[in-house]
């Protein structure tokens, strides 16, 4: 059952981010009305407590909203703004309105905060950085982790595009002054894995739509005098697509549930989050390939919405550390704990 929050989000996506309409709208005029509606519904700051100006939704509700966004292949920084609000709230900082993103967005890129409030460092591949008004930054201060809020215009942003054509950028903090900052008990691994779970639930949503689109098309498209869905070879491909969509759904829902329940970010939660990232990235690759095979040439055209889903699925694999980086980290941890701990780790989830 979808929660009222998710239902509200779904209505907004259906009205204002319909993939067909977005695909025809080369100028991107759809985005401003959509964002306004999301803000009015309190969805952009869902993870910010009411006391700090947000909606105070549970983590699970926010992830449900992101799964719904994935079903529309939403090309707006909703996940990023949710994550930024969550990070700011960890430091007790009030979140501003408007689009936000977060830094770091890749592993191994420490950002330093001077005692006088100046940030130094570089964050690569920050999703939607060129469109964000603010960045929530996790930095290292003299006495531990600090969360900082920074105006985007105070930073140097080197704009780029993802495989799907969505904006991203390298953000350089060159003595940039933070608007506010506070200490917080959160580390970069936890932040990035929150991002990974967000991408996992988005991917599961997109794979769900991919399956629906492919099933509908296979039932309609006639070749060799029957709907192509009547051919066993096509049926088996669609069954595989359903399998990949299922694996992504199970892994992402499990990770979202795990982080909702977790009192602290332990090895079990690390497994859940990393596994969601890894398995959803694999499903994205397999699922996108199968869907394109089902659609044939029409699915390769700009006019068709298929690429809105397949390219975002592929692009999301890169965000917050690609799945190979997390697989190596998971593998190292498993090796460190030793052979006898592997099954107990799996069985405890």
């Amino acid at each position, binding site marked *: 059952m979808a929660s009222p929050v998710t239902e509200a989000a779904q209505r907004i996506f259906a009205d204002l981010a319909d993939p067909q309409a977005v695909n025809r709208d080369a100028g991107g005029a759809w985005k401003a009305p959509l964002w306004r509606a999301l803000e009015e519904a309190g969805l952009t700051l869902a993870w910010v407590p009411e006391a700090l100006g947000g909606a105070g939704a549970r983590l699970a509700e926010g992830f449900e909203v992101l799964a719904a966004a994935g079903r529309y292949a939403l090309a707006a920084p909703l996940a990023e703004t949710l994550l930024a609000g969550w990070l700011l709230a960890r430091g007790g900082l009030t979140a501003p309105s408007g689009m936000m993103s977060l830094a770091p967005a890749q592993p191994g890129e420490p950002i330093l905060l001077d005692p006088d409030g100046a940030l130094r460092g570089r964050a690569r591949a920050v999703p939607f950085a060129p469109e964000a008004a603010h960045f929530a930054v996790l930095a290292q201060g003299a006495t531990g982790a600090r969360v900082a809020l920074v105006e985007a215009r105070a930073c140097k942003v080197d704009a780029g595009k993802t495989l799907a054509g969505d904006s991203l950028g390298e953000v350089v903090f060159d003595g940039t002054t933070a608007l506010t900052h506070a200490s917080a008990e959160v580390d970069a691994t936890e932040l990035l894995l929150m991002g990974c779970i967000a991408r996992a639930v988005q991917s599961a949503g997109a794979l*769900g739509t991919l*399956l*629906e689109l492919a*099933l*509908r098309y*296979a*039932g309609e498209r006639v070749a060799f005098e029957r709907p192509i*869905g*009547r051919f*066993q070879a*096509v*049926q*088996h491909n*669609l*069954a*595989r697509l*359903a*399998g990949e*969509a*299922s*694996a992504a*759904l*199970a*892994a992402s*829902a*499990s990770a*979202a*549930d*795990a982080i909702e*329940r977790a009192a602290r970010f332990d090895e079990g939660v690390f*497994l*859940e989050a*990393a*596994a969601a990232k*890894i*398995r959803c990235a*694999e499903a994205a690759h397999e699922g996108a390939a199968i869907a394109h095979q089902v659609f044939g040439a029409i699915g390769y055209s700009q006019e068709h919405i298929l690429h809105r889903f397949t390219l975002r699925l592929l692009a999301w694999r890169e965000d917050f550390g690609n*799945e*190979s980086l*997390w*697989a*190596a*980290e*998971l*593998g*190292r941890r*498993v*090796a*460190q704990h*030793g*052979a*006898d701990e*592997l*099954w107990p780790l*799996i*069985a405890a*989830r």
Partner: protein
Amino acid sequence: MNAALHFDPIRLPPECIRLRQEVREFLEGELDSGRRGRREVFNREFSRKVGAKGWIGMTWPQKYGGRGRSHLERYVVTEEFLAARAPVRLHFVADRQSGPVLLRYAPEHIKADLLPRICRGELCFCIGMSEPGSGSDLFAAKTRAVPASGGFVVNGTKIWTSNAHQADYMLGLFRTSPPAADNRRHGLSQFLVDMKAPGIRVNPIRQMSGEHDFNEVVFTDAFIPQDHLLGEIDGAWKQATSELAYERSGPERFLETLDVLIALVRLLGAQPDLRAAEGLGRLVAQLHALRRMSVSVSGMLAAGAEPVVEGSIVKDLGTLWEQRLPARVRELAAFAPSDGAARASFDERLEFATLIAPKLTIQGGTTEVLRGIVARGLGLR
């Protein structure tokens, strides 16, 4: 056309955590008493001990020897036994499939006789489905059961029947009428067969792995009493129970080759190179995802839902994963130390897993059949 797939993030309830601890302590004790390292699958003494613990037929009513415990508790016991490669062959089929069928379709006096003995770990069952010329296509079965005074007389041959040489009973699918013009599934009936009855010959079939599970079972005028008919005459096709979904989605569908992954971790040591670490991480992530899918289906079944498509998907993905696992760990082990005890143990396990890999996507419903079931569930058939 309905593509709504459900994999709710179900967590095992607290009683499962206590039970798991109990099962591990039991297995630890058993392994320490000389069982460690033995590749043994069938052990009467072990099955009796498991029965004494109350872990066979544990979901069945107490009046038949069961413990009235939940399907999720049974899930925990099953996965711990599999992960430890415990020798459960004697009671596994009876616990998973045959018992539940008897519970549902056998007359009271047979239930009262057999079910408590299954629960005590005394009875081994086999499943007589495939025939020469009828494997995946069950409804092509030709072995006939013809009415005779007080029962039926059976003639024909079953094949690929696992454990028939050790089984006390078979649940057999026999033809009692020709297929109907409008329903080729009509005309098959399910029977309880006493394997010690006259007219039943079991011929061993050796496997390429060196094991012997398979048999050919030849029926020559074998008599089956009337009360051994299970359910409706000619109507066996309607009698698929929810256990079928448990069977498809259970932990046995992805844990069959788990020991090579554990042996790989031992071989790689605490500091694997980057390539091995990355490969290992992916395998662990895939295993975790499969298990979460499997637990989810079990939880949905226990809650009364019928996740038929989801169950088939778990088996399709799970068996392919456990089948590819030996090949993946072989690649990841290539640059690890090539001598020492960990390598010897790894090589031995890898060899066995490689030998059994081909059967994993065939037994209990082939990949092709499963994908057909998924396609039907998706509205394509």
